[in-house]
């Protein structure tokens, strides 16, 4: 049975339209005009136990709104969802004990107290038995490498250390589902890598299901095999991470090394030259034309070395977002 099952989830907000200037504001007091904003439109997917799935989309695409519906913070306008076999927005106590939502930009820990005190509070909030609690705290602080820091007031910790504490707090009650909204936002590369590594280890160890949003492709590539891509409230892709390049990446990168000191003339007949260093050049070529182009180049020049690569994932994703924005833009 899936851990998350969403069928036709739709959320429409009614947003008051503000007129410009003072007179406009006065008019707004008498008669307000509203505009309907479709944040999420007919989104359906299912996530199986133990999966780690990334939720990708540009800002305002509907990722956070979907996470809010799945965690029970808001009701959908239409559609249904079952999460851990509960209807999330009924907010049953038993449901709230079995998942956690971590938002990279929000603090749950008490600012002036050591994290250990906040952990104690979580123990009470979730009514955790003392043995289990101590064991979990021990495991998690070791895994995240923050053993000595739990007695230091949270305000004295670095952003990365604080995020680790936030994650530990969220995992204390051993949730079966972990929803992560931008867990590594603003962190340096080292902290980012540690956190993704720990999350991966935790998933392997405990089999927890994770759904995360992130703008850092590094996180996504490190953690998730499967991605959901959402733009303008519509789910446009649900499948393997590797499949994104095949479906949306229209070009490939051909890297060539020529004989001699420089690159020969006439390369731009075959594609867009993106780099030229000494005798080496990179060429962006339409996927469909790759065999034909390679044949032609080999015939015309003396090539010492060559490789064909997919473009970097974040470039593909950026391209997908841009295309979606163009399609949706009012004509």
């Amino acid at each position, binding site marked *: 049975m899936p851990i998350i099952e969403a069928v036709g989830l739709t959320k429409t907000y009614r947003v008051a339209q503000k007129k410009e200037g003072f007179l406009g504001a006065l008019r707004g007091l008498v008669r307000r005009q509203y505009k309907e904003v479709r944040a999420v439109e007919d989104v359906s997917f299912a996530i199986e136990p133990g999966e780690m799935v990334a939720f990708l989309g540009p800002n305002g695409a509907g990722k956070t709104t979907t996470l809010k519906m799945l965690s029970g913070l808001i009701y959908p306008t239409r559609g249904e969802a079952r999460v851990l076999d509960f209807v999330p927005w009924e*907010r049953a106590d038993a449901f709230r004990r079995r998942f956690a*939502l971590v938002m990279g930009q929000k603090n749950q820990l008490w600012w002036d*107290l050591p994290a250990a005190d906040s952990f104690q509070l979580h123990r*009470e909030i979730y009514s955790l038995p003392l043995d289990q609690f101590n064991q979990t705290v021990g495991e998690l602080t070791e895994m995240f490498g923050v053993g000595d820091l739990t007695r230091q007031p949270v305000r004295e910790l670095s952003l990365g250390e604080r995020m680790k504490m936030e994650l530990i707090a969220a995992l204390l009650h051993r949730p079966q589902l972990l929803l992560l909204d931008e867990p590594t936002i603003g962190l340096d590369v080292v902290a980012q890598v540690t956190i993704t590594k720990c999350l991966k280890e935790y998933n392997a160890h405990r089999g927890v299901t994770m759904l995360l949003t992130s703008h850092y492709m590094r996180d996504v590539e490190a953690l998730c095999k499967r991605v959901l891509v959402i733009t303008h409230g519509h789910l446009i892709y649900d499948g393997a991470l590797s499949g994104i390049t095949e479906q949306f990446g229209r070009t490939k990168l051909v890297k060539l090394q020529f004989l001699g000191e420089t690159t020969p003339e006439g390369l731009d007949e075959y594609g867009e030259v993106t780099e030229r260093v000494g005798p080496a050049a990179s060429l962006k070529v339409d996927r469909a034309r790759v065999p034909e182009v390679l044949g032609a180049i080999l015939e015309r020049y003396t090539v010492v070395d060559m490789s064909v690569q997919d473009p970097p994932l974040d470039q593909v994703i950026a391209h997908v977002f841009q295309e979606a924005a163009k399609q949706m833009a009012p004509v």
Partner: protein
Amino acid sequence: MSAVLVALPKYLKIYRVSLTERLVYRADFFLGTILRFLPTVTTILLWEAIYEGSKKDELGGFKRDEMIAYLLLVHVSRMFSSMPGLAYGIARDVRDGSLKKYLLQPIDMIAYLVAYRGAHKTAYIATTALPYALLFFLFRAYFPPFPDALTLTGYVVSLLLAFLIGFFFEASLGMMGFWFLEVTSLLYIVGAINFFVSGQMLPPDFVPKPWSDVLKALPFKYLAYFPAMVFLGKVRGWDLVYGLVAEVAWAACFIVLARLLYRWGLRRYSAYGG
């Protein structure tokens, strides 16, 4: 009822953790207490002058000494009933989305805030007990003989109920944040009116009838006036019993009001925002 008992240790723990947190600020409390009494000194001098000028021994049923004692006692009442930042904090949590944590975790926001505020009050009262004791010792000549055990019990009960009324009244105000983006002006106006209607500025007995009766029929007198009057021995016997029963009833009303507003507010929050 059993659900409440099961949940009780959770909120006691929150109370304890909050207490630890609040004690971080003990120096601030200490300074705050001293500074808070400075305006009172001017008020006392003002009333001294009023009694002097009126050439009367008694005004509005208050002797000069009783008046001075009253002004000090309403401070004690407000120590229990005032809730600085509570309403604003709730409205801010609604606005900036911090409210989420109460919806995601198995925890009730109102019960959590009661525990937190209770701890705040305990820390405040504990750290300021000494300066208060000193102050009351210095002003001892103005006070009537120390109340008997029964009156004292009534006094303590009236203060604890003042905490509940103050808390749930302010919490209800804070729930306005579900409907209005900005509540600062509303809270400022309510605060200013409250200073008068609670009897903190002067006893309602000084206002001409029937307005004084109106003021005394409102629940706000329990925030300052009523406990002070109990300590001064001006509410006795059955009057004390009726007064306390009415205080319980008002506390219950505000508890229900805050709960209802919270429920309606959440319904709105879940439908429109979050």
